[in-house]
């Protein structure tokens, strides 16, 4: 390893805890890996509690309880309580399916700080078709009311793609109506199941641009009423996103079985060695695990990143995207207009935006088949 990688990295701010890969929904844009981890291998609540204590000591402030669907875990209230005991800010990222009013109240009592509820569209039939689950949308609206009633802040999150891009502003309006404090309008990013479904998800460029401009207008009109966070459509950008705020700089991701990843898609990169919370402390993993040091800092970069003024702003973009589009995780993210392969991105986007591919739904896990 280089000298730079041996230096103590800055303390991480956030930890994404993937409590399970099980989920009743089958959204085609899901960022979970194609090879889902099994229920049998999931960490128990006590181990998560130990991980949270180690995370707090390391400097983490936000814990994002995610999945899959974290509500699939019956011990979720205990896991939430472990966050509160460790002094961490807890955020539940949920589809709303599996929540009841009693459970929402129990989670609030155990110290849950924030709930992020996904919706798939503002139009119920379309929303249910995207989720691959009839009746899901109505149940989400009900869950939103229970959450707001506790006083916990509610975020509505929607991933934007071809089937709902024309209704992005209606989704913002729905979030306001539901009493959300914040809404996240995130154009699809193509990893995991979303990458497998890219040809069915990619919107036409003009539609994505129009949706972007309309939501930006709403941000001004709704200032003070709701916070709008807007995630740009990657494939139409000229500068890459600083993925994860830079590799191994701000966040870590713990898989259901305890593998610690620099990002949720990192396992797609061949040759990386991941360490588990079962074998190492979180501090040791953050500082020394080979996967975290593989792309930390700027030493690993080749040109045009290596001498670029933006190398400590975007950190070369996203490694998983460079891999997905160019077959080389060490390359400059081709979303960057300085990449010699930038034309690939536009070509793929144009081709996929006119494809008539059908959704490839992730299989319903056995325990939800009859739900």
């Amino acid at each position, binding site marked *: 390893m280089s000298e730079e990688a041996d230096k103590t990295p800055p303390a991480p701010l956030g930890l994404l805890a993937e409590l399970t890969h099980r989920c009743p929904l089958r959204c085609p844009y899901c960022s979970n890996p194609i090879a889902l981890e099994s229920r049998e291998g999931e960490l128990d609540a006590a181990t998560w509690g130990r991980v949270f204590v180690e995370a707090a000591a*390391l400097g983490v402030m936000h814990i994002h309880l995610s999945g899959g669907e974290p509500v699939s875990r019956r011990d979720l209230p205990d896991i939430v309580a472990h966050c509160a005991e460790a002094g961490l*800010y807890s*955020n539940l990222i949920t589809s709303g399916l599996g929540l009841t009013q009693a459970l929402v109240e129990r989670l609030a009592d155990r110290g849950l700080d924030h709930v992020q509820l996904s919706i798939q569209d503002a139009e119920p039939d379309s929303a249910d078709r995207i989720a691959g689950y009839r009746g899901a949308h109505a149940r989400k609206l009900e869950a939103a009311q229970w959450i707001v009633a506790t006083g*916990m802040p509610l*975020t509505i999150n929607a991933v934007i793609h071809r089937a709902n891009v024309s209704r992005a502003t209606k989704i913002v309006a729905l979030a306001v109506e539901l009493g959300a404090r*914040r809404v996240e309008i995130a154009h699809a990013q193509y990893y995991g199941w979303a990458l497998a479904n890219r040809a069915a998800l990619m919107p036409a460029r003009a539609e994505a641009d129009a949706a972007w401009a309309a939501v930006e207008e709403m941000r001004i009109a709704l200032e003070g009423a*709701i*916070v709008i966070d807007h995630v740009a459509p990657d494939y139409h950008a000229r500068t890459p996103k600083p993925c994860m705020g830079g590799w191994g700089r701000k966040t870590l991701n713990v898989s259901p079985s305890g593998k610690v990843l620099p990002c949720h898609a990192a396992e797609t990169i061949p040759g990386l060695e991941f360490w588990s919370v079962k074998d190492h402390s979180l501090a040791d993993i953050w500082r020394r695990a080979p996967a975290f040091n593989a792309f930390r800092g700027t030493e690993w970069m080749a040109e045009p990143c290596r001498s670029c003024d933006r190398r400590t702003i975007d950190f070369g973009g996203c490694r998983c995207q460079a891999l997905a589009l160019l077959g080389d995780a060490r390359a400059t993210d081709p979303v960057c207009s300085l990449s010699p392969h930038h034309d690939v991105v536009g070509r793929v986007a144009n081709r996929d935006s006119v494809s008539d591919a059908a959704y490839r739904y992730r299989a319903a896990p056995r325990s939800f088949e009859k739900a």
Partner: protein
Amino acid sequence: MSAGEDIPASARPHLPRGVKLKRDEARGGFALLAPERIVRADPVAAAVLERCDGQRTLAEIVDDLCVTYRGERGRIEADVRRLLADLAAKKMVRL
């Protein structure tokens, strides 16, 4: 009109549920934690926010800060109003 001038002196600002001021042991100082936001709170902001308990009025908070920091009232009040208006727009403070 400068930011926050329209906040009544009788307002009782407070942090809504889901917003927390926390001592940052790893990096020093204070951080304001909110949904998907971690905002560094400088010592002045932390002193103001510690007093935003929903009990004290804006006027009382300013009085208290004037005593503690022995500053000029007009300037302290303008700073407090600016901070509260900014955080209210971000839904991190309720007035």
